[in-house]
């Protein structure tokens, strides 16, 4: 079997020898597939395999295709692109794999290859471009749009969005949130623009930095506000470094590793002085932890990225590990919990958020079968691959217990998608972020935020 030698990876792409049909730099990493023994244990974990029943849409199949390009049996072309881009990047296969094969990393690297070899065209290309290059990296543009509705109209994506019924979801979603939470009028980055440190209420125990996220801060500023409340309530001084930017997860998922690296560098520098970086979006947290992957061929930045990655912590794990006040107010609600892929599979965080939730007095947790199954959101997957995303969502919704009031989770992308699922299926659950519930309980304890 043909192999790629380490040395080949370092060479100028034009000089690449051997059978490999990966001609450009930033190769898929051979060591990632070498562990795959084709056992198939990943198959049932994969949402796209569940729907299609097709091997090329399974983790094992995708790894096999990626390997086949390296072995010179396939070339990077349209047909190869389809299975590689149909992956939700949910990482469920990483959990299932007995040999710890990093399928997610391989997929991202392969997408990088495809992006370099074949620029995107058509609708998918347009969507990608608007979202990834025109918008997410530019906080001011996001802020400037004021509301998503406007943004959709301006970006010319209204039609796509209408088709996916997202337009109906958004206002409803915000209404729901407003019903539970104090009103939030502006993104936290704007709100705390002139505040260096948001001081803990009561005794300061430590200082943490907060990554606000790009979309998160505009669409879900309420969640960011809740996160700050919960942090300061529990002895954390919070800083919001000014130069931070989008984490780049969506760019890397889409194969735009160059932009990914640019954003990574900016964040690494922005948080240089932080000891701990709190993230409340699972997708961002996972991407930040994986920055070193982007710099495999750049030792200097690789080291910086390693240091940076070690500082990243999900809000639920941070609270769980450092301790937090168990709220005294009773919420009296039945909820269920959805494991965001990038929290459960990506970061191995499953029990911590559940603990936060069940410790709130009056919260009754109903177990959701297959709770760590992807909901189909997967970044902008629900917009680029609406059909598959919708099928994945349908499967997900079948597992949501009927008799709960709320579905809690730790990722904004999932929240949008699940809200869509609730509406599509005529259900009536409210979608909440884990910290929102906790914050709500604190508010109630303090005599505010009665429902």
């Amino acid at each position, binding site marked *: *079997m043909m*192999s790629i030698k380490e040395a080949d990876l370092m060479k100028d792409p034009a000089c690449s020898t051997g059978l490999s049909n990966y001609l450009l730099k930033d190769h898929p990493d051979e060591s990632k597939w*070498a*562990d*795959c*023994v*084709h*056992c*198939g*244990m*990943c*198959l*049932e974990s994969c949402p796209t395999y569940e729907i*299609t*029943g*097709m*091997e*090329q849409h*399974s983790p094992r*199949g995708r790894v*096999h*295709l990626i390997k*086949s390009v390296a072995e010179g*049996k*396939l070339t990077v*072309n349209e*047909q*190869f692109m*389809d*299975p590689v881009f149909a992956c939700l990047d949910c990482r469920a296969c990483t959990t*299932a*794999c*007995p*040999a*710890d*094969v990093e399928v997610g990393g391989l997929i991202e690297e392969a997408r990088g290859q495809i992006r370099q070899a074949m620029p995107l065209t058509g609708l998918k290309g347009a969507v990608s471009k608007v979202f990834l290059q025109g918008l997410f990296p530019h906080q001011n543009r996001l802020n400037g749009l004021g509301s998503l509705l406007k943004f959709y109209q301006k970006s010319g994506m209204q039609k796509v969005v209408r088709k996916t019924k997202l337009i109906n979801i958004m206002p409803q979603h915000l209404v729901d949130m407003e019903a539970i939470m104090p009103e939030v009028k502006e993104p936290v980055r704007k709100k705390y623009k002139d505040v260096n440190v948001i001081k803990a209420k009561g005794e300061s125990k430590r200082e943490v930095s907060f990554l606000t996220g790009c979309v998160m801060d505009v669409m879900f500023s309420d969640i960011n506000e809740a996160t700050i409340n919960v942090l300061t309530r529990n002895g954390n001084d919070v800083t919001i470094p000014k130069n931070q930017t989008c984490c780049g997860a969506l760019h890397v998922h889409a194969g735009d590793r160059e932009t990914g690296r640019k954003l990574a560098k900016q964040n690494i520098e922005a948080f240089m002085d932080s000891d701990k970086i709190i993230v409340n979006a699972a997708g961002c947290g996972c991407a930040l932890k994986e920055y070193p992957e982007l710099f495999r061929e750049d030792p200097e930045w690789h080291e910086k990225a390693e240091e940076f990655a070690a500082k990243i912590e999900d809000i639920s794990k941070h609270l769980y590990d450092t301790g937090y006040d168990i709220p005294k107010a009773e919420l009296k609600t039945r909820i269920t919990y959805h494991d965001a892929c990038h929290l459960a599979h990506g970061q191995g965080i499953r029990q911590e958020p559940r603990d936060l939730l069940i410790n709130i007095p009056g919260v009754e947790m109903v177990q959701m079968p297959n709770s760590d199954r992807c909901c189909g959101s997967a970044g902008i997957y629900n917009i680029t691959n609406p059909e598959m995303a919708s099928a994945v969502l349908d499967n997900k919704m079948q597992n949501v217990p009927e008799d709960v009031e709320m579905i809690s989770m730790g990722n904004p992308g999932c929240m949008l998608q699940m809200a869509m699922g609730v509406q599509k299926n005529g259900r009536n659950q409210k979608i909440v972020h884990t910290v929102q519930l906790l914050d709500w309980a604190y508010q109630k304890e303090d005599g505010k935020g009665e429902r």
Partner: protein
Amino acid sequence: MAVKGIKSNDRHILNLANIVGDARSIIYHKEDLIAYDCDGFTLHKHLPKAVVFPKNTEEVAALVKYCAEHQLPFLARGAGTGLSGGAIPLNGEVIISLMRMKKLLSVDFENRRAVVQPGFVNLKLTNSISDKGYYYAPDPSSQYCCTIGGNVAENAGGAHCLKYGVTTNHILGLEVVLPNGDIVEIGANGIPDEPGYDLLGLLTGSEGTLGIVTKITVRILKNPEAKKTVLAYFDNVEDGSQAVSDIISAGIVPAALEMMDKTAIEGVEAAAFPVGHPKDIEAVLLIEVDGIADGLDEQINQILGVCRKRNVREVRAAKDEAERGRWWANRKTGFGAMGAISPDYLVQDGVIPRSRLPEVLSRINKISEESGLRIANIFHAGDGNLHPLVLFDARIPGQSEKALEAGSACLQVCADVGGTITGEHGVGIEKREEMRFVFTDEEIIAQTDIRSVFNPDNLLNAGKLFPMPGRCVEIKKEIKERSS
């Protein structure tokens, strides 16, 4: 009428697409087909002509009929987790994938049976009936993803077949599409002993060479009242294997009696589901008894007594279901876990009379020394079903060939002591030649004669199960060329 979205000039592709009705139920581009060039056995690969995804029995029958009429070789495939290459399209077959026929059709608790489609995943059956306290007994290690259709083809076993039997002991009825496209029902209504030759028994384990199963009636069992699971650690393999023999001889029928040796322990502990086995231990036994709770202590005590007599270092009992689950996950992902300590492995599947265990293990050890390849042993010790895992690196010239030789030598040892070459993985491509270790030419012809009754043109899954003069040498040569 042509199906929309098919970009091919091949009339067979167009016609097959017509049968399954839409462009999403057939694949024919090389980039997609390559995902089907092998199954869980990766040492031989070949591209299929196409892969089709029928939705029901009638479509399967129509596809088969088309292939038969046009003399196109074809085969059926489930999840493709087979370890002997039974689903590899050696002859550029049309693959009939049964992954869109994956429903649980009915469950009849009163009469203890369930009807499933072939693409239904093994473990899902147990998961679907466990709330009522029932389960499906055959539990191959791949049960998280392998299909019951594939289990029927391979007559799959598993850790718990020591007490509960293998797939064939749990199949009550089959709907089968014969290689000429006829649909027949065998074991009507799932009633045992249907008059006539036992075709149910013959089809189960026929490795997809006699027909394509499209509906399966299986027996379901009530969960045992209680289970007790212990780990027993031994400082030498000899003691461990003697303990296995002693437990069986003492008249105990454990639900499972599994063993792993030092190399295997290294693998599972380095992989995704470690449980903290001591690193310096030579063998671990995973022993499970089940049944009426009141009777289990007596059995466990007897087992512990046997282990002590054989110098066990330490015994641990699972404290709860979660711990028991972790132990089993550690054991059941054992093959895949080898990826963590070796780039490639070849798993063998010999069976020996239990009493010959110590002798056979030492001979396998010798094969390992002679070949210079590490061999890990994970096995169903209670059945005498060994899984020597030959660890190798296909990138090193000559190692693939050496691994095959070592694997074959292990099987020769099994045959020599009165055993057989495969206990649950099937012959497939992998062990065709080794069939000669256990059967005479006449006995092999007796079997191919039966095949010719069902599959006269040998269009269905040809080249599997039986030795073909000269073929094995070719495969070995090919591997040698590829690895150099």
